[in-house]
């Protein structure tokens, strides 16, 4: 047995030793222990260093609210987790744990120098200390903050675990399986109602696990608990442990994380580490109990100083004495029971120090019976001890005056400042709170959700009260759902309801300005910091919170918020309800990214869309790039080629003979109906009425604000049918926009819109030999200038496949786009590839497509435009049907700002030194002007062009279209590049190459 283990106590399995390591040291615990209980059983309180001052810290609590005892856990390769609460992590053979925030070791830490520099690090120190001089920021302050900041160490390896995600629908969800939750479940599980009872702990029972002395209906608490759980399961209640309700979302959706494997030495195959549950419950019962408040005094963070209720839990649940000579410091009855339990288990309780002048006579009598000295009307003014508390300094308080100090030797201080309901999930519902003057705390009031609160979470202390309230609430929600639930009556013996008073900082005879009386342990916020924040002008509790960081750590202020509020309210001279509580936000406890990501990781993080020709490109060694959700072939390098080499080769080959390109990702929308042409006239800037069936046209889509939204070639297949193409990334957006206008502005139009993007595989053939290659394969149309001129479209047959053939060009060469039903895409590609071999056909990717189109000055919406570019700005005025009475964007284009002089306009740029510009580079007119220079535009596209024999660029330049031939300047980090403004067409401005 370890030194601090008590025989016959606790729920741990004495015959099942478990060995794990802490900072490399082997520690023996028992099955059922947490890391914290096992370390305490071995007399180890020091478990970490604090975040800001690197002060030595041990656990103050025994549950998920623990702010101090944060450890790293390693379960295997890649399975490292920082900031795990030692009070929650169950031990198993081989578990590796490490303390945090220490260098070089936990017992001797250099960062503790921050503790000595305490006065420098007070409230708002981030805002004050690091402000001046400016030059110190890069070299001194930022490296310092970066080195010091952060809790624990981020894992650096890929997480090999899997995470699952499930939905759950139920009638009643009960959060918390303590007495209130158990009784609520028992009452609600009537008439087939689906009841779910969840608890974050490894076993259900809540406070019953820490109070074995109680008897319910004459049955000992633990026996009753086992019977009750069996009865609930038999009644069909789903009981889920190690499952934390992390957030309460709209309309009774509760997020829950179930931990499945962290407590197991061997991970079962095919079991996720954690499972995120999204629960939609008709009714929710919140029975999360209450959290004990620390007392605020100098040195209240020393290892060995902990909550009295937690010490009771360590003893009764884990069989561990947290000290052999503890002293109890309290303002509440409940800590007296901790003193009695520890004394009965063999500890020599040094004293019970109570801030109150009077206490219940029965408590006095019990203390006297055990020979425990009692000090009423006392305060604590300091603790001492280097890495563990060794003594407590106490003083009598008479009429508000602090008297002479006495020192009590001790190895633990069990403190209690009373209890505060756990309001977190209730607060997530945006429920309102009411201040209770008797309990000096906030209680839940109204909530917009279908939710009730039971037991200690609404300020009812003691097992009997919790059972009774739980039963009544369970019955009520069942009745709400039309079922007759039964609220049993419970008789409880040896219950321990108690009362107390709420304190701010305890009174002291020392300078309170020098006291390290911690309110928020995890963020190292003291009472002094809170008062300083108020003195420095913070008036709202939300400002005080942010200025001091009180309640902003990973424990979400579970222990600190109420103490912080009481102190801030006092400093403000206001009553706490006038100051109010800060908002609690999900998640209730720290939650792994894995649980949120669920299945959406790796290749499943985002969907990857692939065309039917993608597999050919992969076989052929293409390099891919993501475009929207699509994976597109970027270029096809041959052996030894760089990207530039490959792109130049592809460009040259296409202009010399023929190139083929997978254009399947282009968005495609079929616009059909008697009013299709009218609809097109209204949506697109171009006129469509005179476009004959069998012909196509470049279409430009604006928003009603007059800015370009999308573009694409649109074919009129028949009188009432248009084949609309959109940009790859814009397909869904354009269809939504069309649907919006059609459904809500012009519901009278007889038009149907269908997305056909994935119905067609589209292959573009470009180059002087494109027609020669394709013609022998086409049935139904002759590929001659007369029968099928540029900008024609037709339904025909290609290589025996039904096809929709377009004669269009995005390269300036003779061009065709062959659409066939998608499943035939790769077959057609292979046929064209084989047929192209005599012409030295070249497969090209998106980069070559970009170069070839830029050489012709064809824009790419979203690259050469940015949402503030009009058709006129882009040099596309010719595409605007000015005679049409209306179209989307017509009125917008007449807005004064859009017709004003000096707008940024798209132009070509040729550098004087033949260098290639960087896309995104800023442009100025006068490179010699003082800083900051007036920026007049930026480079939107830039490539090396073999056809032009030099680098080319497109750019948006202020008033660019009136500045042809002028020189602009592009300042780069090492030099300034001069470039001449030109037109946008760099190759074949006469379009001679488009002709057959």
């Amino acid at each position, binding site marked *: 047995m370890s030194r601090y283990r008590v025989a016959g106590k606790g729920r741990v399995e004495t015959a099942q030793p478990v060995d794990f390591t802490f900072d490399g040291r082997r520690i023996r615990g028992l099955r059922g222990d947490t890391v914290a209980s096992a370390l305490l059983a071995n007399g180890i309180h020091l478990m970490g260093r604090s975040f800001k001052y690197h002060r030595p810290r041990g656990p103050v609590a025994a549950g998920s609210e623990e702010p101090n005892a944060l450890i790293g856990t390693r379960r295997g390769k890649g399975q490292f987790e920082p900031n795990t609460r030692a009070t929650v992590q169950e031990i198993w053979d081989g578990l590796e744990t490490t303390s945090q925030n220490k260098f070089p070791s936990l017992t001797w830490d250099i960062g503790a120098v921050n503790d000595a520099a305490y006065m420098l690090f007070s409230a708002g120190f981030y805002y004050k200390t690091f402000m001046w001089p400016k030059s110190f920021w890069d070299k001194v302050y930022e490296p310092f903050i970066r080195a010091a900041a952060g809790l624990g160490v981020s894992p650096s390896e890929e997480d090999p675990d899997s995470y699952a995600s499930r939905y759950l629908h139920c009638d009643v969800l009960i959060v918390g399986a303590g007495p209130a939750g158990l009784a609520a479940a028992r009452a609600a599980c009537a008439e087939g109602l689906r009841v779910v009872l969840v608890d974050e702990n490894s076993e259900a029972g809540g406070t019953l696990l820490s109070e074995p002395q109680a008897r319910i209906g004459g049955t000992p608490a633990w026996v009753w608990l086992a019977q009750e759980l069996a009865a609930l399961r038999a009644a069909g209640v789903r009981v889920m442990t190690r499952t934390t309700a992390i957030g309460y*979302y*709209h*309309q009774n*959706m509760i997020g829950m994380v179930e931990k499945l494997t962290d407590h197991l030495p061997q991970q079962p195959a095919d079991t996720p580490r954690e499972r995120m549950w*999204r629960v939609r419950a008709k009714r929710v019962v919140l029975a999360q109990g209450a959290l004990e408040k620390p007392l605020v005094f100098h040195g209240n963070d020393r290892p060995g100083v902990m909550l009295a209720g937690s010490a009771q839990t360590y003893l009764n649940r884990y069989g561990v004495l947290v000290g052999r000579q503890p002293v109890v410091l309290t303002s509440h009855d409940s800590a007296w029971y901790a003193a009695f339990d520890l004394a009965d288990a063999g500890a020599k309780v040094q004293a019970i120090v109570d801030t109150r002048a009077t206490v219940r006579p029965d408590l006095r009598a019990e203390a006297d019976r055990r020979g425990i000295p009692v000090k009423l009307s006392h305060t604590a003014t300091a603790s001492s001890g280097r890495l563990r508390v060794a003594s407590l300094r106490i003083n009598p308080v008479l009429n508000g005056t602090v008297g002479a100090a006495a020192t009590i030797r001790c190895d633990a201080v069990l403190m209690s400042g009373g209890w505060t309901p756990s309001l977190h999930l209730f607060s997530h519902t*945006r429920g309102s709170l009411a201040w209770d003057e008797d309990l000096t705390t906030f209680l839940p009031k109204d909530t*917009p959700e279908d939710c009730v609160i039971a037991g200690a979470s609404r300020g009812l202390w003691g097992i009997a009260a919790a059972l009774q309230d739980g039963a009544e609430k369970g019955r009520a929600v069942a009745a709400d759902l039309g079922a007759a639930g039964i609220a049993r009556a419970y008789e409880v013996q040896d219950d321990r309801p108690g009362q107390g008073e709420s304190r701010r900082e305890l009174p002291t005879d020392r300078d309170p300005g020098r006291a390290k009386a911690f309110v928020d342990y995890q963020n190292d916020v003291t009472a002094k910091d809170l008062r300083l924040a108020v003195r420095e002008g913070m008036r709202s509790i939300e400002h005080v919170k942010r200025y001091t960081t009180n309640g902003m750590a990973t424990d979400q202020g579970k222990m600190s918020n109420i103490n912080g509020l009481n102190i801030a309210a006092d400093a403000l001279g206001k009553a706490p309800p006038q100051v109010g509580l800060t908002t609690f936000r999900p998640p209730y406890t720290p939650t792994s990214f894995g649980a949120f990501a669920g299945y959406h990781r790796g290749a499943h993080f985002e969907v990857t869309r692939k065309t039917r020709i993608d597999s050919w490109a992969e076989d052929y060694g293409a390099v891919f790039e993501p475009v929207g959700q699509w994976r597109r072939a970027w270029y096809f390098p041959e052996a030894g080629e760089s990207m530039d080499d490959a792109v130049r080769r592809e460009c040259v080959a296409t202009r010399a003979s023929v190139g083929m390109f997978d254009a399947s990702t282009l968005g495609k929308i079929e616009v059909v109906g008697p009013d299709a042409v009218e609809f097109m006239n209204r949506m697109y800037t171009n006129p469509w009425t005179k476009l004959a069936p069998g012909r196509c046209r470049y279409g430009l889509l604006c928003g*009603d*604000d007059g800015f370009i939204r999308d573009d694409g070639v649109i074919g009129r297949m028949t009188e009432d049918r248009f084949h609309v193409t959109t940009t790859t990334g814009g397909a869904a957006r354009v269809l*939504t926009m069309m*649907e*919006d206008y059609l*459904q*809500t*502005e012009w*519901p009278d139009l007889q038009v149907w819109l269908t997305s056909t993007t994935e119905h067609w595989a589209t292959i573009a053939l470009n180059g002087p030999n494109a027609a020669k290659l394709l013609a022998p394969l086409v049935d139904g149309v002759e590929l001659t200038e007369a029968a099928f001129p540029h900008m024609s479209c037709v339904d025909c047959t290609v290589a025996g496949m039904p096809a929709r053939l377009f004669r269009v060009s995005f390269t300036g060469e003779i061009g065709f786009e062959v659409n066939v039903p998608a499943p035939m895409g790769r077959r057609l590609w292979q046929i064209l590839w084989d047929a192209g071999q005599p012409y030295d056909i070249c497969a090209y990717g998106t980069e070559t497509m970009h170069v070839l189109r830029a050489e012709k000055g064809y824009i790419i919406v979203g690259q050469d435009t940015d949402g503030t570019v009009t058709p006129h700005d882009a040099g596309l005025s010719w595409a605007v049907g000015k005679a049409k*009475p*209306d179209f989307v964007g*017509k*009125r*917008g284009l*007449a*807005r*004064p700002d859009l017709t004003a002089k000096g707008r940024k306009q798209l132009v070509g740029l040729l550098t004087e030194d033949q260098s290639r510009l960087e896309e995104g580079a800023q442009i100025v007119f006068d490179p010699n002007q003082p800083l900051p220079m007036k920026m007049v535009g930026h480079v939107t596209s830039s490539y090396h062009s073999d056809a032009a024999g030099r680098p080319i660029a497109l750019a948006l330049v202020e008033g660019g279209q009136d500045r042809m031939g002028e020189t602009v300047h592009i300042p780069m980090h090492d030099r300034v590049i001069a470039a001449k403004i030109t037109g946008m067409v760099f190759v074949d401005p006469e379009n001679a190459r488009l002709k057959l």
Partner: protein
Amino acid sequence: MLLIHCPYCDETLPEAEFAYAGQAHVLRPQDPSAQTDEQWEEFLFIRENPKGPHFERWRHQHGCGRFFNAVRDTVSDKFLTTYRAGAPRPDLASLTESLT
């Protein structure tokens, strides 16, 4: 996650199926070219930002695809009602009463 009633499908479904589509009852003028600059600015850019019931549009994006109107309380996030596009603006007083 909100639950939203699609007035076309007549089903209450999870928010993930829907897309928000801005303020409702902003009618595109019959003849935009006849609008003054101020009127057009109003139509394009000026929107309500109420604390309380808000008339807004949603689309059943991953369902029937229809745009519809809704009244949602921006404080509680509760939907007071949803109704088909083109239907008249419901009387607010009757909506808030029906909730209490």
